[in-house]
């Protein structure tokens, strides 16, 4: 499916550019995007190193275990296939907390870390495990209490009340997260039978 979507985006993009009479934009777009990829990765190395360094401190001081013990029981119900004391749980909890607080660039390092830990418990290394799929569904649909970036944009655009969309955002993310959890649960149970 990913292969097809990737190809479709490229082909549609090139054909439409041609029809719209600006085929040369394909060249600049592709080159710029490739450069941007490197920029994003380099930036991520910095942020990632910062958060993973802090996380190591938290781990060695025993905080991550404490947090896992506190929130673990609730989270573990969503990940029945994980080991009792799985190190993935800590990273999953940190990632979801960052998402809830709207700290986008802290969420990614914890998310990638969680994937690495989940991969260690994955019996089939090139196929996504149910725990990974549940995690990604949670991660992308996660409830957001503070859409910080968009509040900033509204502030700059002189909104009378920049934070008034917090309520609607909470409702929308609450619904999408609930549906994602339920559908994921149903799929897992149907497949097990």
């Amino acid at each position, binding site marked *: 499916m990913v292969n097809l979507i990737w190809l479709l985006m490229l082909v549609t993009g090139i054909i439409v550019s041609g029809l719209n009479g*600006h085929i040369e934009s394909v060249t600049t777009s592709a080159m710029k995007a490739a450069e941007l990829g490197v920029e994003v990765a380099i930036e*991520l190395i910095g942020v990632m*190193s910062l958060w993973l*360094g802090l996380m190591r401190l938290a781990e060695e001081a025993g*905080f991550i275990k404490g947090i896992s013990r506190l929130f673990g029981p609730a989270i573990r119900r969503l990940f029945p296939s994980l080991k009792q004391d799985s190190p993935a749980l800590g990273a999953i909890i940190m990632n979801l907390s960052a998402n809830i607080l709207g700290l986008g660039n802290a969420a990614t390092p914890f998310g990638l870390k969680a994937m690495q830990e989940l991969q260690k418990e994955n019996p089939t290394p090139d196929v996504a495990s149910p725990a990974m799929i549940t995690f990604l569904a949670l*991660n992308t649909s996660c409830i957001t209490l*503070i859409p910080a970036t968009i509040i900033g944009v*509204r502030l700059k655009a002189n909104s009378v009340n920049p934070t008034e969309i917090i309520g609607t955002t909470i409702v929308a993310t609450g619904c999408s997260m609930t549906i994602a959890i339920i559908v994921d649960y149903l799929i897992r149970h149907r497949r097990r039978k």
Partner: protein
Amino acid sequence: MKVIAEISRWAIPLLLLLIPVLAYLRKVPVYESFVAGAEEGFITGVRILPFLIGMLVAIRVFVDSGALETVSHWLQPLFALLGLDPNFAAIIPLAIMRPLSGSGALGVATQLINQYGPDSYIGRLASTLQGSTDTTFFVLTVYFGSVGIKKYRYALKLGLLADAIGLIVSVWIVTKVFH
């Protein structure tokens, strides 16, 4: 609402303060441990590079072609028939862009907010939509790529379903609350 915004402002400074101080009190060699943990950041960043570039190139070529505007232009009469706000079609490029590219979607949302005004129907809808859905397609390909997963199984469908729900609920709640 103010309280929540304050929490967001203080969260990172507090973490940067509390974790090292408390770890030190627990006799963790703070600087050495930090460096040891940070090392992993480099490896991960390098590992996701090809996935980032592959996705960004395809997405950029697609978005810059103007295909999204064409689609939303076609759909305009349909929304008028459904009795929605006549400007509603302006949201379509954002809705399609959202799962693909975070910075692209933010660009579209910013443009909509400035064009229609932050306190207009479209401005509020764009704000809610931007905050309530994620770059699902992008996150999936990069996260899976970083650990070498090739078969995603039902992950993409599930993620996109959640985005679709987020979109529908956003339209519904913004219409209900602000209209």
